Every structure is written in structure tokens, then in C-alpha cells.
């Protein structure tokens, strides 16, 4: 196989980004005015990119499915944002952040991209402060930091438990400023349904106006996809209800590679599912594991009684409690990384020790820290989280332990991009969670915000110039050409097809079914047989869906069911590809756990010999199997070692 050109300059790691910036082309201000750029999605990556590109002088057309850019799901991020500022004088550095991220990602990300991420991280903080983001401060007026899982320094900047919100509102402000100036044309309640390729280059999109149902064409010299992750394949996840993989999936179907689709992060501390009426899962911040002890009963009889509601957790004495994380991982205890904690909880519940009525929950107990530190201290640290928990569950976590269970949280996989964040389709870019490049097989806490803003503020505005410099002679894209007409026709055709099936089951029925298959076979623990079963089941589900889905309402009006139908149709396809990718990767790494690849103690075992690559899936047609291309990952600056938390 020919080597994939990822455009990473062959110079020492620390010089790569500056050398690359020197070598890429720049577009003159006069020419920028003539160039249109479409940005789809207005989360941290999309909003920051749209604003920065408009500041540079490009004509930006920004799209979001929400009624305001401010509602993109970046807003839900709680904990914080990492940056190698070394404000705490604790020997943090760009290299250390780079190293932690590579190691946290279980050595399945690109060195050059991650190093660049660490390199620009300090600029992000400066930028956000200048925008008026109210980061937490010390009494002396300097910025405050806290630590997060998987690292030994204190480099996480935060704004209470609403860091994502504050960073997004900063970018939203910058975006609004450009909208007011007329440099950004904002399209809210618009959903991208296809990307238009003309002569091999991305030249625009087809989007549906979600208010009146109109399907419209938009042309541009480049298209940037910043539409987030596809975690909602699982139906239940911490993603927002509208989060979807459709934009990414349409790019894939037009030839863009989908990289590492099977890398999904499962967050260990979410509020458990309460029953089959549940629509969405709520995350409880990772920080809770600093002061909470995770346990299940030692005796199965106790677990059964708890499941039936016959006894309360407080009836179980300490000696009958199994603090399984402390038992299995004495050195890290309750603070093992997310993937490890999630798997351990699942293992206990599968063995019959789960504690809520469904048997799918473990306790996170603050009794011990309340005894040690007092209720006031715990309240000061986690008061808002405790209140949130009580609102949802009606249980007071000061008196009874919290119940938690792992849930789908983030997708590390996404569109393949080169060092310029461009996909293999010229003029088509992917940034933020929508691309695959920076987090490998597992993302560290507080790194998603960092990556979104790094891409949008400090990487894409430089690298897009390299492509657009060659487009200055291209006139405004004419959307009446056959390529656009065809794309629009195919979008309308698909919508009409979905609408006219008029089967018997609403969209959610299929989405829930898909979620069950994914969770059971492509979830926290995977094996070859299960994955094959999953593919079969999903292919069957796909047939049923296209034969029997029921979409009510009108085509030319607000129609959430029609929107969902299109998304779920894509989710099924994405699910199949995820299972295929998981099947191919016969090693355990990060969030991807293959039961066939474990150490003698049952821990995840990587196989660097055979799998040190990013899998880049190439679409070959509706009925053909996709082709796997492999981008070999080269590690010149870190040594690959097996992670251990014992």
C-alpha cells in the first residue's frame, strides 16, 4: 500500500508547526474578500473557526441545526480546558502536555498533531481571557488551575462547572461580532444534508431549512465540517438529542475517509438509566471521584436485596462492601482513567453485583469524605452537582451514596484529516470532535475543549490559506450547475423516500433498537463473534427501517421526526462501520476493549506490532464493503509502553 501523505513536515517535532506555517501559502486581503467558506456546526471548533476566518476577511457562511449558535453541545462541557501555561510552576511544559495526551490516548494518535495542540494551548487561554471569559481566579487576581485525571500537574483552567459554556459564549461573541459586521452570514435551524463535490473539490453543501422544509444549495470555495461526534449511535449517551453524525457520514459517502470509527469514550460516572422511558444520560463530573469511593456489595444476596429495594445501601456495613477499584488498582484507586473505571463497573454489574433495580449501577459514596472533611467542605466542592443529582433522582447524596454507571460520552474517531485538517477531498476540512487526529484511542479530561478551540482559532485559519491560495481565480461558485442540482435532487429524493414509507414504527423505535445492539456488542467490551452478530443485526435493522419507518407531519414544515429519520438512517450505517472497524482492530487500546486481547490479569493489552495505525475507511458504494486504508503512526519522540494503574 502506498504511504498516506499526511503533510507532516519532516523536521524535529518541536519545529514542525513553525516550519509548516512558514512553508504554506497565504492569501492576500484583497483576495480573501472574494473567497467564500462554509462552516457547518457552531460549537467551539465551528464558532471559533467561523469568527477567525471572517476576521481574516473571508466571506463565511455558518450553519447550525440549533436556533442559536450558542446552543451547540460544547456548551455542556463541565470540567475545564487544559493548557501548558505552567502558571503553577509545577514543571509543566508543551512537551509534558503532549506526552500526557499521547499516553492518555494509548499511543494511537499522531505525534505531530498532538504536539501542535499542546503548542498552541497557551494562546487559547490568552484569547479567551481577552474575550471576557470569566475563568476562576485566585485572590491575587491570577488565573486559577485544578488537576484532572491522568496527569501529574495542575494545568486545567475552568469557569466553575460550566467551562464549555463560557468558552463557547466567548467564541459565540466573536462570531456575533462578525455577523453584525456582515462578514458571517449565519444560518440557524439549517441542517447540512450533503456536501457537493465539483471536479473532485468540495464546492458547497445542501442544507434543509428546518422551519419551512426548503432544501437549499450553498456554494463556497471550501467547506469546513465542525459537526461534533456520533455518540448518539448508541441512542443513550451524554450527547444532546440533536447531535448526529450525518454531516460527517455524507462526507464519507462522497469519498472522505472515516478514521478510527470504533474509538468511543465511555464515561464512568453518569446517572444510571432509570427505565425504558429514558431519553438521555446525564454526566456527573469526573472530579467527584476525587472524594467519592466506588463500591458494590461483596455478597450477591445483598446486591439482590438492593435491586429489589428491600434494604438501603446504608444497611451494608463497611466490611461487606467491595471497593473494587481500590482492590484492583491499589496505586490509582478510584482515580483510574475513564476507560478502566468504566470497564470495572461493567464487570461487577455483569457478575450480578449491580445495585439499582436494573442491576446496572454502582455506588459512589461520599460518606467517608464527609466523615473526614465535614459536610461543608463537600458541599463547597460539589454542591451544584449534588443538587443536580437530587433533582434528577430524588435521592440526597449527602445521606445515601450516588448511583452511577458508565455512558457513551465522546467519539475519538471521525473524518480523516491531514496536518492541515483537510480531509482527503480537496477543500473539505474537518475540525474539532468531527475529525480523528488528536485523541487516539482515549481522550483525556479537559482536552476536547482545547482541541476544538485550537483547531478553530489557531490551526485552520492558517492552513486553509494553503488551499485557498490556489482558488483565488475561481469565481463565486455557481449553484445552478448539474453537480448541485444532482445533490439537491438526491437529498430531496431521500427525504421523500423516508417520508413516504409510512410504515408502522416511529423513528425512535429503530434508534432504541440500534442503541441496544451497539451497547450490547460494540460497547465497553467487544469480541469477534459479538461484532459479527452486531453487523448482521444492524444490516437487518437497516432493512426494517427502510421498509417500516413511520414519519408523520409535513415535508414543508417543522418536522423533528423527519430530521430524526435521516439521522437514524445514517446512525445505522455508522454503527455498522464502527463494528467493522472494531472487528478489524484485534487489540485492546484505550476505549476499545477486545476480550481476545487481554493480559493475564484481564487488563487491556495493546498490540503495537500489528495495530499502530489509524484505520481510514473508504466508501465504495451502498452495497459494496468499505476499503480499509492504513495510516501508519510513527512514534519518534515517545516510547510505547503498556499502561498500568496497579
Amino acid at each position, binding site marked *: 500500500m502506498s504511504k498516506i501523505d499526511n503533510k507532516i513536515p519532516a523536521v524535529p517535532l518541536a519545529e514542525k508547526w513553525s516550519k509548516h506555517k512558514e512553508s504554506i501559502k497565504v492569501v492576500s486581503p484583497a483576495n480573501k474578500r472574494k473567497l467564500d467558506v462554509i462552516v457547518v456546526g457552531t460549537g467551539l471548533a465551528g464558532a471559533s473557526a467561523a469568527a477567525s476566518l471572517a476576521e481574516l476577511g473571508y466571506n463565511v457562511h455558518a450553519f447550525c441545526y440549533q436556533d442559536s449558535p450558542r446552543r451547540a453541545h460544547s456548551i455542556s462541557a463541565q470540567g475545564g480546558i487544559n493548557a501548558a501555561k505552567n502558571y503553577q510552576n509545577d514543571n509543566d511544559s508543551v512537551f509534558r502536555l503532549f506526552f500526557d495526551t499521547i499516553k492518555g490516548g494509548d499511543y494511537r494518535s499522531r505525534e505531530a498533531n498532538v504536539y501542535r495542540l499542546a503548542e498552541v494551548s497557551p494562546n487559547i487561554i490568552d484569547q479567551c*481571557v481577552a474575550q471576557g471569559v470569566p475563568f476562576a481566579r485566585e485572590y491575587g487576581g491570577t488565573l486559577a488551575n485544578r488537576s484532572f485525571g491522568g496527569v501529574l500537574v495542575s494545568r486545567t483552567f475552568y469557569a466553575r462547572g460550566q467551562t464549555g459554556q463560557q468558552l463557547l459564549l466567548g467564541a459565540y461573541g466573536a462570531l456575533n*461580532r462578525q455577523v453584525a459586521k456582515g462578514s458571517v452570514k449565519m444560518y440557524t435551524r439549517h441542517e447540512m444534508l450533503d456536501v457537493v463535490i465539483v471536479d473532485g473539490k468540495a464546492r458547497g453543501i445542501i442544507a434543509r431549512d428546518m422551519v419551512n422544509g426548503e432544501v437549499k444549495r450553498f456554494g463556497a470555495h471550501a467547506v469546513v465540517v465542525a459537526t461534533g461526534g456520533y455518540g448518539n449511535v448508541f441512542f443513550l449517551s451524554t450527547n444532546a438529542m440533536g447531535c448526529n453524525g450525518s454531516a460527517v457520514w455524507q462526507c464519507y459517502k462522497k469519498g472522505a475517509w472515516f478514521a478510527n470509527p470504533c474509538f468511543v469514550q465511555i464515561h464512568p460516572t453518569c446517572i444510571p438509566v432509570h427505565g425504558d422511558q429514558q431519553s438521555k444520560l446525564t454526566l456527573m463530573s469526573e472530579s467527584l471521584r476525587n472524594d467519592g469511593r466506588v463500591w458494590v456489595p461483596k455478597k450477591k444476596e445483598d446486591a439482590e436485596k438492593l435491586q429489589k429495594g428491600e434494604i438501603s445501601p446504608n444497611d451494608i456495613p463497611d466490611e461487606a462492601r467491595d471497593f473494587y477499584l481500590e482492590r484492583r488498582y491499589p496505586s490509582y484507586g478510584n482515580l483510574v482513567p475513564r476507560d478502566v473505571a468504566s470497564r470495572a463497573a461493567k464487570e461487577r454489574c455483569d457478575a450480578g453485583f449491580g445495585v439499582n433495580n436494573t442491576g446496572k449501577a454502582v455506588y459512589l459514596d461520599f460518606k467517608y469524605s464527609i466523615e473526614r472533611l465535614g459536610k461543608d467542605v463537600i458541599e463547597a466542592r460539589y454542591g451544584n452537582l449534588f443538587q443536580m443529582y437530587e433533582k434528577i433522582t430524588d435521592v440526597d447524596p449527602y445521606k445515601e451514596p450516588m448511583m452511577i454507571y458508565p455512558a457513551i460520552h465522546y467519539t475519538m474517531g471521525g473524518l480523516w484529516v491531514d496536518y492541515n485538517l483537510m480531509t482527503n477531498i480537496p477543500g473539505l476540512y474537518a475540525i474539532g470532535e468531527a475529525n480523528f487526529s488528536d485523541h487516539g484511542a482515549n481522550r483525556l479530561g479537559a482536552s476536547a475543549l482545547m482541541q476544538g478551540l485550537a483547531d478553530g482559532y489557531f490551526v485552520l485559519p492558517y492552513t486553509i490559506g494553503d488551499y485557498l491560495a490556489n482558488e483565488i481565480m475561481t469565481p463565486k461558485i455557481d449553484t445552478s450547475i448539474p453537480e448541485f442540482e444532482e445533490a439537491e435532487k438526491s437529498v430531496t429524493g431521500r427525504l421523500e423516500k423516508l417520508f413516504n414509507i409510512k410504515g408502522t414504527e416511529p423513528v425512535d423505535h429503530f434508534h432504541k433498537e440500534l442503541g441496544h445492539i451497539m451497547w450490547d456488542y460494540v460497547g465497553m467490551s467487544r469480541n469477534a463473534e459479538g461484532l459479527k452478530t452486531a453487523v448482521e443485526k444492524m444490516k437487518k435493522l437497516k432493512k426494517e427501517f427502510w421498509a417500516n419507518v413511520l414519519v408523520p407531519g409535513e415535508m414543508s414544515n417543522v418536522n423533528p421526526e423527519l430530521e430524526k429519520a435521516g439521522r437514524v438512517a445514517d446512525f445505522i450505517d455508522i454503527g455498522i462501520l464502527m463494528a467493522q472497524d472494531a472487528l478489524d482492530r484485534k487489540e485492546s487500546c484505550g476505549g476499545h476493549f477486545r476480550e481476545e486481547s487481554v493480559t493475564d490479569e484481564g487488563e487491556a493489552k495493546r498490540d503495537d506490532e500489528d495495530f499502530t495505525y489509524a484505520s481510514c475507511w473508504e466508501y465504495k458504494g451502498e452495497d459494496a464493503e468499505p476499503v480499509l486504508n492504513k495510516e501508519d503512526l510513527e512514534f519518534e519522540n515517545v516510547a510505547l509502553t503498556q499502561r498500568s494503574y496497579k
Partner: protein
Amino acid sequence: MADVILKKIYVKVWRQNNVRAKGRFETYEVENISQGSSFLEMLDILNDKLIREGKDPIAFDHDCREGICGTCSLYVNGRAHGPDRDITTCQLHMRKFNEGETITIEPWRAGAFPVIKDLMVDRTAFEKIQQAGGFVSVNTGGVPDGNAIPIGYEDAEEAMDAAACIGCGACVATCKNSSAMLFVAAKVSQLAKLPQGKVEGKRRAKAMVAKMDELGFGGCTNTGACELECPKGISISHIARLNREYLKAKFSD
């Protein structure tokens, strides 16, 4: 915890096909709802039933379902976001309701928030207010170090109190005058507390208030209802600061 099931409840919902159509109330029966379910999950179940009966499901705005995106916007039993404190509609749970109860659900009512369909309203007016000045005019790059300008702990905290606004519009919905003062105040006050925002404070206050007036929101009569119904508990003290900023700006013109 025991899972209590509401065997039957009734929901009286505003139905309106589009912005121009005339609306009306319709009452539906919903059966077997767990009190542990969220309010929006109850609506999901009702919609599932409506779809299966060949009827048009109820359109309502929602997204993150964890109380931060500000999309959900229902006026439930006479209160913005329903009968509980410090929550959005998506955080409202069915344990707040009783067996056999009739729950009235209306969209946000304000001239500046036209109904798009059923319970969905158009909050573009909020976008326009923010575009009028809800930002610090600084380009990407070329900014000083984050620690270059110290900001006192109290100031940062107060700015954060205001910045917590999620832009849901509950303040407008609940205000007897449909005033957007709390929404405007949250942004003006946040940036007025920070040195980065102070620089263009006067212009901002004037521009945002002018835009708010232009868009047809009512005036503030200080009833304080917005603060109590705000899911983030944003204080009307920020409105006092907005007034101060505005008057200072106007008197120095």
C-alpha cells in the same frame, strides 16, 4: 427508590401549525408515566402515541436535556420551566405532578418570540441583541497573556454569576411585560465587571438596550419574577448595573 407510576394524566397543549396559523388548545391523555421520568420524556411518550395514531406530534424545542443549552422553553402550569426552582424544562421531573392532573403547556408568550410551531418559538431577537454588542471587540491572536491583567476574585465571581445565562428566554416569558432586561443585563454586567469588557462598556449598554427596545420587548418594572424563574438564578442586581451603565453612558454623551 420506589418507582411510582402515574396511571393517567392529561396534558392541555397549545397547537399551532405555523407562525401565521391560528392556535388552539388540545387536551391529550397520557398513561403510565414513571415519576422518575423527565417532563420531556413524558412528551416523547405522548408523541410516540400520537405518531402511532396517525396524528401530528407536538413540536417543542429541546436539545442537551441537562439544563445548559437553553433550548427547552415550556410554560408549564403557569410558570416558565414549570413548578420547580432553578431548573430548565428538561430538568423538570414527573414527580412534581399528581395522578389525574391536567397539565397546561404553553409556548413562551411574547411579541418578540413568535410561535414557529406548537410550543416552539423563534428567539432570533436574542441573537440580534447579542449581535448589537454582546462581545469584546478583539480579533484572534495578538492578545496579552492571560495573567497580564489581574482580575480580583470577587469581580471574576460576579462576572461568572452573570455569565451563567443560558439564553433560554424564561425571563421574557415570565415577565408580565415580556421584558428582556435580565437577558441584556446578564451580558452587559458580565463584561462591565471585567477590565477587558469595560473598554467598550458604554457603547455596549446603549446598543444592546436600543436593540432590545427596537425588537418589541417590554420595559422592566422590577417585579423580580425573572430572577425567581431564571434556571440559573441570575440576580436582578445585574439589571441595576445595566441601568447604571446605560445612564452613565447616556449622561456622558
